[in-house]
């Protein structure tokens, strides 16, 4: 029998957060989701009227960098509010309970909120040896994952581990580490790749799900389009140097000091879909390229097996991943003749236009 749930607002107030700060949180969230200020009242209304959605956070084969990123969300208010909503249930890194008590909470939460909760999964299940390579709480993680997924309304796959496999799935993948969506195939799944993902992206995805009660628009790799529809290359502040053929030729050369493009030093910006060049890291302070190192492409599938971080991106095929983000290449367009140019133009204009409605796909009747 599913439990009756409080609203988000009731939970937030019970946690000692004032109404004023609740409204501030709504504005900050609207901004972090790329929505205009007009959406803040809609978020507030949804949180005041909708029942709180419980979040259970599992850890498989991973390094906990996703949690570390998440709890360092740029704005303390955002992480306080989001954590007060999710830490009530289960996350073995930040919960107070331990040992048998913690595992009991997991089982209890699964029964109590059956069919209602969001399952956030950090890391992946290794399938080799009957799952013996990841054994939390005395049982194979893959079993826990399947049990918990069965009662979830949707699953968030945090980071490159859960989304793609990451380093533990690198060749020869001895433990057969497997992305969550290849093990759980009957639930809505949202992939949030990155090693780790950007804190604002994580809080943005959680808040979107909790506030609007549905998945944001996803691309063909199940990534939220609002954060993963542009490449690092598309929004890089060093892009004018790439365009002008101005490259760093060796570490610490004169061009490096001038802040030239790092493409020749192996930057994977041209093949990597992520929001690092626009949202940036550590409260928007910087991102790898701004610190003088190329992008290593950590949010792309199989990035450990694509050669050295310092190998120059080369070849047409590598850029072919564009199609994965639902962009329509000229050659791949499903239209003929002169319509190809118009089709390509329409696609690119849609991509460069920073329209909140386009990016977030929020309709009035859902707000």
């Amino acid at each position, binding site marked *: 029998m599913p439990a009756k749930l409080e609203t988000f607002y009731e939970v937030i107030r019970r946690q*000692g*957060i*004032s109404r*004023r*700060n609740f409204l*501030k949180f709504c*504005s*900050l969230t609207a*901004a*972090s989701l790329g929505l205009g200020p007009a959406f803040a009242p809609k978020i507030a209304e949804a949180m005041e009227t909708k029942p709180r959605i419980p979040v259970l956070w599992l850890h498989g084969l991973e390094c906990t960098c996703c949690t570390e990123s998440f709890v360092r969300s*740029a*704005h*303390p*208010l955002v992480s306080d509010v989001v954590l007060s909503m999710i830490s009530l249930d289960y996350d073995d890194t930040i919960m107070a309970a331990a040992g048998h008590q913690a595992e009991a909470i997991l089982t209890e939460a699964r029964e109590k909120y059956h069919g209602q909760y969001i399952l956030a999964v950090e890391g992946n299940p290794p399938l080799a040896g009957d799952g013996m390579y990841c054994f939390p709480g005395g049982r194979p993680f893959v079993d826990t994952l399947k049990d918990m997924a069965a009662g979830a309304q949707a699953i968030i796959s945090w980071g490159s581990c859960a989304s793609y496999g990451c380093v533990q799935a690198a060749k020869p993948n001895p433990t057969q580490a497997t992305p969550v969506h290849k093990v759980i195939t009957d639930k809505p799944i949202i992939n949030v790749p990155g090693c780790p993902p950007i804190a604002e992206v994580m809080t943005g995805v959680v808040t979107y799900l909790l506030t609007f009660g549905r998945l944001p628009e996803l691309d063909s790799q199940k990534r939220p389009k609002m954060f993963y529809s542009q490449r690092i*290359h*598309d*929004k890089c*502040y*060093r*892009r*004018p*140097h*790439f*365009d*002008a*053929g*101005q490259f760093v030729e060796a570490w610490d050369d004169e061009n490096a000091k001038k*802040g030239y493009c790092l*493409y020749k030093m192996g930057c994977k910006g*041209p093949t990597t879909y992520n929001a690092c060049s626009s949202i940036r890291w550590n*409260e*928007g302070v910087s991102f790898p390229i701004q610190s003088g190192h190329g992008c290593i492409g950590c949010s792309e599938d199989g990035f450990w097996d694509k050669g050295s971080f310092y190998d*120059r*991106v*080369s*070849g*047409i095929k590598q*850029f072919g991943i564009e199609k994965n983000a639902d962009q329509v*290449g*000229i*050659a*791949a367009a499903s239209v003929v003749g*002169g319509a*190809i*140019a*118009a089709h*390509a*133009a*329409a696609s*690119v*204009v849609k991509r*460069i*236009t*920073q*329209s909140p409605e*386009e990016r977030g796909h929020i309709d009035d009747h859902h707000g």
Partner: protein
Amino acid sequence: MGMAGSAGGGMATRDSVLHCFQQANQRMAGLPVHNPALQVEVRGVQPLAMQDGVLIAVLITPWCMNLILLRQAGAEPWQGFYTGLERDLALPCGPVRFVVGDDGNGGFYQMCSLFSPMDDFPDHGMAQEVADETLKAVLTPPAGVEVQHDVPVTEPAPDAGAEPEGVSRRGLLRGWRREDL
């Protein structure tokens, strides 16, 4: 277009941009991102209706296609520009973010990436066709939306969305703890 050889005041012109990218073309030749079927061209230069003294055009090169903004000859130069500065501009198609670049002689332009690299383009004619269609689409409002005139070019706030105006992140947190808890 009535464009002088040099706009003066550190502004790039169609010719200076063309020259800069033709030189870059020599440096880029042979790199994997260089599509030898294409040439360097600045196309469709035209005044931007909602921005006095601003020209919009499309730059085609063998490695990228960009929207570019130039200052019209005689117009007041852009102030406080440097390479890498990001600026948002409300175009008829919607808000678009541009990045400031320079022509190698201190002349500034603004660019927004459309395509890069250019492997998908089989020949220059196709690139020209897509460039023209894109410029047309950028300057056409989406159905049911009125064109906004006189919308100022604005710089995105630093750390956009991170904190309300005039209150530091730390101050906000402190204020909250002191007043409310």
